[in-house]
């Protein structure tokens, strides 16, 4: 029983990583109705920016806030320059655009900061949390930040005019335009927010997986799995999905024989396919009803 509890705790700790990533994915899915395959690379780039700022002597929280602002602006710039012209294009073209963006960001980051693994500082320290060997203070901090982020997003979407406008623009663009919402800018705003959330995820993950241009590969797949499990239409579901995926991954590794490190990605695949087949809307998402 103790093994079980320990594994669940460890799962929650890793799950926090996936939850952050899934949250960023769901945000952009809400805003533009596409899954951004370059999301992980955008987060990686933001993390490198914050690392560079710290190398130049900016204190951690200063670099954190500055990176947040820069990522937000960066997300908007990418949308305005590259993806606004593609708004009316078929989904296929958009996916190709994401792939191109992925290649560009990965390669540029590799050129500027090269592919060696770098240490990344944590503001929370890495001593055991409340005497438990399984969760460090950093992981606890990560869970806390994810929760804060979720609450902030909930408040934003539920109680502010801007949040309402964004929701309207995403779900019924025509009607939203009729009541005077600038839907095109709402999409840009969605990109900015997704980039900012991604940068938070990146900065929280970096102390655990270390900083390098390919750090997001595995995390992104698990983020996808978490987002699908929780439902692509629900930020809350994404976070819960992240924790569930983390727990599931740890328990499967402990209790199913033959599942070691090498089977981690196939597990994510099995999870994605199962959820999509059994309940495509995810645990907390709403089923999409199509009007003919």
């Amino acid at each position, binding site marked *: 029983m103790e093994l079980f509890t320990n594994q669940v705790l460890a799962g929650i700790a890793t799950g926090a990583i996936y939850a952050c990533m899934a949250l960023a994915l769901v945000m952009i899915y809400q805003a533009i109705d596409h899954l951004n395959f370059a999301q992980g690379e955008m987060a990686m780039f933001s993390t490198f920016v914050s690392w560079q700022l710290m190398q130049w002597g900016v204190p951690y929280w200063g670099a954190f806030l500055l990176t947040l602002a820069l990522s937000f602006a960066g997300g908007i710039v990418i949308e305005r320059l590259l993806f606004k012209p593609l708004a009316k294009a078929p989904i296929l073209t958009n996916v190709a655009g994401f792939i191109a963006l*992925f290649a560009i960001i990965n390669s540029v980051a590799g050129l500027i900061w090269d592919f060696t693994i770098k240490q990344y500082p944590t503001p929370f320290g890495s001593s055991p949390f409340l005497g438990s060997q399984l969760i460090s203070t950093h992981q606890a901090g990560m869970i806390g930040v994810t929760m804060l982020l979720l609450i902030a997003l909930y408040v934003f979407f539920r109680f502010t005019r801007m949040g309402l406008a964004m929701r309207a623009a995403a779900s019924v663009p025509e009607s939203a335009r009729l009541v005077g919402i600038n839907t095109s800018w709402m999409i840009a705003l969605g990109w900015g927010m997704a980039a900012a959330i991604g940068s938070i995820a990146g900065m929280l993950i970096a102390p655990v997986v270390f900083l390098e241009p390919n750090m997001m590969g595995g995390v992104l797949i698990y983020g996808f799995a978490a987002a699908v499990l929780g439902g692509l239409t629900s930020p809350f579901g994404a976070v819960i999905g992240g924790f569930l995926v983390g727990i599931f991954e740890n328990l499967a590794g402990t209790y199913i024989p*033959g599942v070691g490190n*090498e089977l981690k990605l196939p597990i994510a695949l099995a999870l994605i396919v199962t959820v*999509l087949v059994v309940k495509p809307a995810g645990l907390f998402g709403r089923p999409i009803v199509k009007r003919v």
Partner: protein
Amino acid sequence: MSAVQEVVTDAPAVEAVPKRALTLGIGTSLTVLAALILAPLFVKNFIIFQMTMLLVYGLAVLALNILTGGSGQFSLGQSAFYAVGAYTSAILMEHAGMNYALTLPVAGLICFIFGFLFGQPALRLSGVYLALATFALATAMPQLLKLGYVEHWTGGVQGLVVTKPDAPFGLPISQDMWLYYFTLAITIAIYVFSVNLLRSRSGRAFMAIRDNEIAASAMGVDVALYKTLAFGVSAGITGVAGGLGAIAVQFVAPDGYTITLAIQLFVGMVVGGVGWLPGSIVGSAFIIFVPNIAEGISKGLSGAVFGVILFLVIFLVPHGARQVALVAQHLLGKLKKS
């Protein structure tokens, strides 16, 4: 966050391509064919090898084109089918001592079944969700191949070495050249098959599903059957391409079939023009040669150059090589008149 989507106003997943636009005219086809037959007589063995790979990737892109351009379904998981085909050929040749030419139909058949089965859950999904599921399939495939259970057959991380076949009947040509012509013959056969498939009743059913699924089912098209069938055919052709690729490269290893390959094939399709079968070879040339060119421009930035070129293609010629070909045809017509 209302969950009702207007089908009519939605951007389509894939733009409709008129059926007539799917192929080349007879004259152009014969010219291209003659070029493909004669070219290897004048170049070095390494270039012949590259041309073989051009045809192999061309086949794989063609397969994706049938799936996406024909029936409107996405796949970022073609590398998985390619890997299954490659491994089937390699295992049959090395463990069962089968003739290389006979392994290809087996590879195709196994991949057809695999694709048909994967098409079943994929039925529930469309657009982005399908891209996602196939994406996960592609990332998981290398790890599945490395599994301990199948290591005896697949050779695990080490992979398998495949012997290159000699030219039969004592023909006085090099192995590379023989393999090229062998690949060319298969490519032509599959190309003709695909063109006829898309012109047949099944092909029209694919396209009806692509353009409007509800209307198609109202007209009596068995949507589920044809969607899985498209997956199966596409996977089968990809499997043959994978088998040919394994014979040409003489080596299979899990890390040769990562998500990168799937993305390359996808990019090849976009560049060649979705739904335009001859464009497959253009797309294949793009994915083989452009990374080299990009590396030539800047070694460290090859990925970025590749991405920028891809963006240029999307913005300037969104219909890929098809658009270029149409413009060229138009200009030629003008020249003839004046």
